[in-house]
């Protein structure tokens, strides 16, 4: 009885304020899409980092012949210098470095010819044109700075290079895009809160007669307010579901069907990630509705 009555009231309320309800749904939809997009972009960044940071290394390039770097004043790195560096890496950097690999000039040339069997831009190179280096695989790729502090400026080291730097611009761009989306989401969420508040207020005012009688005959506070709360919650929930649907479509068609075909060596966000974001979006929607109803209803339907 109670449930059926409340649901009837909710349906009537939704029907009576249809245009407002639709606008609540749309605003929630758009704002939560932005929230979801920001979350997915963050997931994408994390995925890329996870994938690529496994591959990246810190390269410690040793002085070649004729380098102008101050640490290379004595010419090409000597055997002693290399041994000493190896010693330093083993002792001072033992906690940071997971794996050390020394790439001699010959190794470097081998890798080079594999990449460019016909020479580079028409120039035939020899092993002497290559540069010897230590390739350090770090336990945590973010700790590049420690390695740099220890090794940079030592005799025989020309330059310490972090391969992460190559990816950094991409991550910065993705990070900024997700910040932008989050910012827009914030503005839209504010609009959604205001709109839900207004809608509930409108609904409460247009049903003042009913609520007045309900209060007089002794309906409990919850019973008076529940239909309004449910109205807001249902509208917000529909908005959230639309947002999840929209994100799913975007991921399916834009990322998986199109982007993955074009650039297939990158791990992309997938439908599973959208589903992981969905509870967050629905949670935000319900929270929005509850907060706005509580604020509004206390003012308009108090016993």
């Amino acid at each position, binding site marked *: *009885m*109670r449930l059926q*009555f409340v649901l009837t009231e909710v349906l009537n309320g939704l029907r009576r304020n249809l245009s407002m309800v639709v606008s609540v749904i749309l605003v929630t939809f758009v704002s939560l899409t932005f929230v979801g997009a920001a979350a997915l972009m963050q997931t994408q960044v994390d995925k890329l980092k996870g994938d690529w940071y496994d591959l990246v290394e810190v390269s410690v390039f040793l002085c070649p012949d004729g380098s102008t770097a101050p640490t290379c004043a004595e010419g090409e790195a000597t055997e002693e210098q290399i041994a000493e560096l190896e010693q330093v890496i083993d002792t001072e950097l033992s906690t940071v470095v997971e794996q050390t690999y020394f790439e001699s000039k010959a190794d470097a040339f081998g890798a080079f010819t594999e990449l460019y069997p016909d020479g580079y831009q028409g120039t035939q190179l020899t092993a002497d044109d290559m540069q010897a280096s230590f390739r350090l695989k770090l336990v945590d790729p973010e700790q590049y700075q420690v390695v740099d502090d220890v090794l940079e400026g030592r005799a025989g080291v020309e330059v310490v290079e972090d391969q992460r730097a190559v990816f950094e611009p991409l991550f910065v761009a993705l990070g900024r895009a997700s910040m932008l989306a989050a910012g827009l989401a914030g503005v839209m969420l504010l609009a959604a809160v205001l709109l839900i508040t207004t809608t509930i207020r409108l609904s409460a005012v247009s049903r003042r*007669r*009913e609520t*007045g*009688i*309900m*209060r*007089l*005959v*002794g*309906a*409990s*506070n919850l*019973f*008076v307010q529940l239909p309004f709360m449910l109205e807001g919650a249902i509208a917000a929930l529909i908005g959230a579901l639309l947002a999840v649907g929209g994100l799913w479509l975007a991921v399916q068609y834009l990322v998986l069907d199109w982007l993955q075909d074009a650039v297939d060596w990158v791990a992309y966000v997938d439908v599973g990630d959208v589903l992981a974001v969905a509870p967050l979006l629905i949670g935000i929607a319900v929270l929005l509705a509850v907060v706005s109803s509580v604020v509004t209803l206390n003012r308009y339907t108090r*016993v």
Partner: protein
Amino acid sequence: MIRFENVSKVYARGARPALDDVSVDVSRGEFVFLVGASGSGKSTFLRLVLREERPTGGRVYVAGRDLSRLSSWKVPSLRRSIGVVFQDFRLLPNKTVHENVAFALQVIGKPRHTISTTVPEVLEMVGLDGKEKRMPHELSGGEQQRVAIARAFVNRPQILLADEPTGNLDPTTSLGIMRLLDRINRTGTTVVMATHDDEIVNEMRKRVVELSTGSVVRDEIDAVYGHRESILPAVGQTPVLDAPGRDAPAVVHRVQVTPEPADLEAERAAEAAAARAAESGDQQPAAALPAAPAVEDRPVDQRPVAQAPVEPVGPPAADRVPEPGSPDDVVQQVLREHERVRAGREA
């Protein structure tokens, strides 16, 4: 049932109190008229009983509860023991008669089978049997008020508050409504009715509590409305309005109307229902009004009560027994009484 102990109510700081040190005790089963000019505190009195307002000072006890200590989540349960009727009916325009009455039970979570048995019963009692499917706008004012009373009474409250229930109705229809309230009173329900209708008060001969600028100036059992001109403010000569000025001629030309056939029909039906109930022994015997303490705030001679403008005619309305089986007689009787009252006024 309702006890006010030195109750004061001030709405805005520094303003004149709406109620000023009011002490009134209404016993179970009593019928009390609350009279006084607009702004004398009648509505505040009713709002305090409903705990729509809290008193600024003093104590209000309703149905055994101390309202000043009643926490707000217990207010709904208090209100379930009180029925309220208003001058403007306050029906829901988009619901039928049946739905309007059922609404009051639905929102307090009564089970469906209770609703489906109680609502027709109460509709029969008020004389609207067969009009369950009508919308409020299809009913006359008197019928609408009957729906409102049915809604207020459907949960069998201990107390029925009526705020000028006849204010929008013509005299004959009002009389019908009063008979209904009287009948409800006889089931043991305490009735408190705020009114400006001297005709009704004089005829019913019940307890009268008169308020003036927030104070009780008169509390008498078996009383009359009092001197109209001293209760209602002077408004000059207004033959159409109910409230003539002090210097207006004694004869007041009231607007006379023929009651709506539908109202008469409802009245007939209600009387018939009451008669049936009486026959089946369902109805409780008319509750003897407990002797309420008559709080005389002033000596009687200072009040113009003795010079009531209306001669009490015949037995009090409450003593009339409807003749079973001849509802037409009842309507005729209502009309005759109406005539008699008017004749008395003009005498």
